Every structure is written in C-alpha cells, then in structure tokens.
C-alpha cells in the first residue's frame, strides 16, 4: 500500500512551489531563524530529529534549511493520519514530499525502518520526530521510540542532528487550524552518534537529553 514517492531525485514543480510558499509563510508568521549551536548548515546526508507538538514543526524546520538541502530532505509522517484520505495523502506526498510510515504495520514491506532506509539509500535526508506523535502533555519531551537507534545502527555514516523547535506549539496547537503570529527559533545542536557498545535505551535517552539541552529557556513556566 505504501508506495515510495521519490520518483525523481529532485522536487516536482508542485513540491518546489509548496516548499517556497510555506517557508515564506513561516517567516511572515514566526520570523523564524535558525540558531546553529554545535553543528553547521551542510549538504551532507543527515537525520534531523526534533521535538513535536504541532503540524507546523516540520514546515518551520524546513524553512531553516537551504532550498537545495530542502529538496533532498523528507519528513517522516504517520500513514495512519496522513494516508487516511486521498486529499491528506496528496498533501503529504505530492505537495510536502513526506515519507509515510505505518506505526502499526502488518506486512514486512510496510516496515517503517525499511521504508526509511530506502529513502536514505537514495542519498536523501530525513526529518524525524522520535516521540512518535505530537506531544500535548505538560512534559517537555516524551520518551523516544526506537527508530532513531535502528536507523543509526543500519547507516552509521548518516549524521544525527538534534533540532529544538521553540514556540511552535503556541503558534499552531494541536487541533487548531489558524496560526497565531509569534516569534520562533529552531536550535540545531551537535551531532549525536551511537557510542561503541552503547545499548539501545541508553542511546535513546542520551539523544533525548541532548535535544532537551538545546531549549534556550529551560525554566519557562508555560
């Protein structure tokens, strides 16, 4: 059922127009700017992993990447949500060029890791939300799912970059449609890699702590 959507190595016209339009919109609404704090913009293959509270998260993160990098970077999204109707699938795949994965797969060809690996093997980068869902709790960051570990074990050359997305949950909370203009930043941290012999849970918790440590105002009380 899941088809791989990377027909060509670059964006279609629709995807380019969508990506430029959404980045411009993100700038008008949030004045978004990237803070490179431990890593630098680069065209090398990466997995950008970020906190997730809003549909706007991936748009904000993409807006911080250069046009060239953006054309080869795909957000990983849940097929249960984005594959539900033809319209949603069209938005997710044909406009946003996201990669849809099933959180609960039945068939081996739908295995999320193999789908994501096939994208990496075409030389493209991924945007991943390791919490697995949008966080609506009071906790700053939910526990990570295993995908990040499994991907990195399979493709150790791909850099894992933590990205802290600030304020987006206030701009476009879950269940809302219209964004409130508020200033946002995305903090890109130092790459994280699995240490020799590091166990899965330990690595995931370390990656999670690295992401948390990027929050520029950790004592925020909202």
């Amino acid at each position, binding site marked *: 059922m899941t088809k791989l959507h990377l027909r060509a190595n670059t964006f279609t016209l629709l995807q380019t127009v969508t990506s430029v339009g959404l980045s411009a919109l993100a700038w008008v609404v949030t*004045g978004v700017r990237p803070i490179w704090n431990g890593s630098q913009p680069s065209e090398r293959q990466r997995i950008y992993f970020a906190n997730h509270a809003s549909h706007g998260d991936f748009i904000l993160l993409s807006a911080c990447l250069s046009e060239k990098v953006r054309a080869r970077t795909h957000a990983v999204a849940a097929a249960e949500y984005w594959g539900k109707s033809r319209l949603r699938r069209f938005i997710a795949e044909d406009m946003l060029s996201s990669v849809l994965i099933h959180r609960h797969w039945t068939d081996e060809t739908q295995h999320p890791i193999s789908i994501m690996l096939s994208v990496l093997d075409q030389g493209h980068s991924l945007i991943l939300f390791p919490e697995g869902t949008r966080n609506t709790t009071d906790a700053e960051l939910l526990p990570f799912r295993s995908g990040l570990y499994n991907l990195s074990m399979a493709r150790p050359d791909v850099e894992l970059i933590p990205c802290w997305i600030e304020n987006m949950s206030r701009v476009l909370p879950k269940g809302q449609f219209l964004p409130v203009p*508020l*200033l946002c930043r995305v903090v890109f941290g130092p790459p994280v890699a699995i240490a020799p012999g590091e166990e899965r849970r330990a690595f995931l918790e370390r990656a999670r702590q690295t992401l948390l440590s990027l929050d*520029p105002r950790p004592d925020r009380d909202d």
Partner: protein
Amino acid sequence: MTLPPMHETVVLLVGLVGVLTTASIVAGILSWRAPKPLPSTLVNLNQRINAWWVMVVAITVAFFFGHTGMTILFALISFAALREFVTLTHSRRSDHWVLLGMFGIIIPYQYWLVWTAWYGLFTIFIPVYCFLLMPAITALNGDTERFLERVSAQQWAVMISVYCVSHVPALLTLNVPGFEGRNLLLIAFLIITVQGSDVFQYIFGKLFGRHLLSPSVSPSKTWEGLIGGLVASSLLGALLSFLTPFSPLAAAGVAFIACLMGFLGGLVASAIKRDQGVKDWGHLIEGHGGMMDRADSLVFAAPVFFHIVRYFWTV
C-alpha cells in the same frame, strides 16, 4: 514665511540623509580603526545606524503613498510589535482565539478606523470594547489558570502595540486650520524629535553621566543624559518648527513633552525587560530586529503628542 510642502519635504529628506550619511561615515571610520572583533558599543552603534536607515527609507516610501501608505506602514509596525510582546508573555492553549483576534481583528479594525478618520470609535474601541470583551471571551473559555495575569498581558499588548502606535498615523486625520494637506510633516516632526532625543540622551549620558536616575531599572539612564537630551531635543524641535503649525517656542514646548514621554516609555520598556529577565526568558528578542526596542519611546510619545495638537491646534 510658509514654505510650500514639497520644499519642506525635500529640505527634510536632504537633512536626514546628510545626518545619517555623516553618522555612517564616522561609524565606519571608528569600526575600521578599532581592534577586531569590534567592541560591543561599536556593534551596537552600527546596528542603530542601520536601523535608522531602514526607518528613513520605510517612512519615505510610505510618505509618497500619503495617508494610505502611512496607515499601512504603522499597521505593519503594530503587527511586529504585538508579535514580540505576545511572544514574551505567558499564554495558554485556551487563549488561541483571543490571540488570533488581536492580530486578525483588532489591528485591521483599529487602522481602518484611523484610515476613515472615525475619531469617536478610534479612541474607545480598544480601551472600552476590547478591554471588556477580551477577558469575557477568556472567561467563557473556562480556563481560570493564572487568569488575571494572562488577561492583563493581553490588554497591555494591544494597548502598547496597537492603540498607542496607531496614534502616529492618526495625526493625519487632524484638521489644523491653515495646515491642510501637510499633516505628514507632523509625523516627521514627532519621529525626528523623539528619536533624536534618544540619541542626545545617549550622547549626554556617555559624556557627562554621573548620577543614575533609576539604578534598579536601567544602569544606563542618568540625570545628566536626561536633562541634556531634553534640552537638545527641545532646541531641535524649535529648529524644525517650520514643518509644523507651531511657533518656535511652542514647538520647543511640544517637543519637550513628547521627548519626556519618550523617556518614560524607554524606562517602562526597561522595567518590563528587567521583569522578564528575572523569569529568565529574556533572550527571545535578541537578533529578531526588536521592533519594541526602537519604538518604545515613540509608543509613549505619540498619544500625548496627538492630544496636545488636537486640543490646542484643531478646531
């Protein structure tokens, strides 16, 4: 000896470009001779000068589009200022619709009232109707967590960023006998004296500052800076009286009051930043252009200037 408006506009523009060019050249020489990396004072000076260039260009462009251009420009300034203000304050998910209304309804409607010169509603729309309806909507939402704090922050945000700022283009709606068609020059007079006063206070403070005015609020504001700045900007006001319906003496007096209000605006802005600093979320504005940093004095000066002109010079 009334000069024609075109003549005044040209004199004004040439004067401003001359002053800014001189400032840029001086700052350029200082930066060139200073050790690298540049000391923070010089970085700050360069940023200020660049901000003034942007300001002069934006206002000049709006100037040539007349009333509509000025109204749209200040609506955009309100948008940027409100966005900064709301970002800094506490809000909850249940505030979403009130926040949307502040951007989507209050800004456009307030500036529509300016554009159509509906003075009666312009002065009460925010302080009466929004003041009462915004907390009512928040209460109807049923989320009482830190209610008063959230509601007060929203009121402050719209009063400062929308209501006060909208008094600048509202100067265009005043009907001063014998001054018809030249109200744009009132805006120029207000902005130049108030921004000039900021610069003079800074310079006098650096040169002669000894006695801190309010150490707990701002470590850089001194009595010497304030007095020197106010005297210099009152003189500047008298020099610029040819732009206005005021006599030179009256122009000095009006400039004095506007600049005193501007000083108080800067003081209040410092107090707000101090307060947020204690809560440790102070870095948010840094690098974002800081509309409020540039506009804090104008925000306090504009409504008072507007009402002085309206009371003493209009029919």
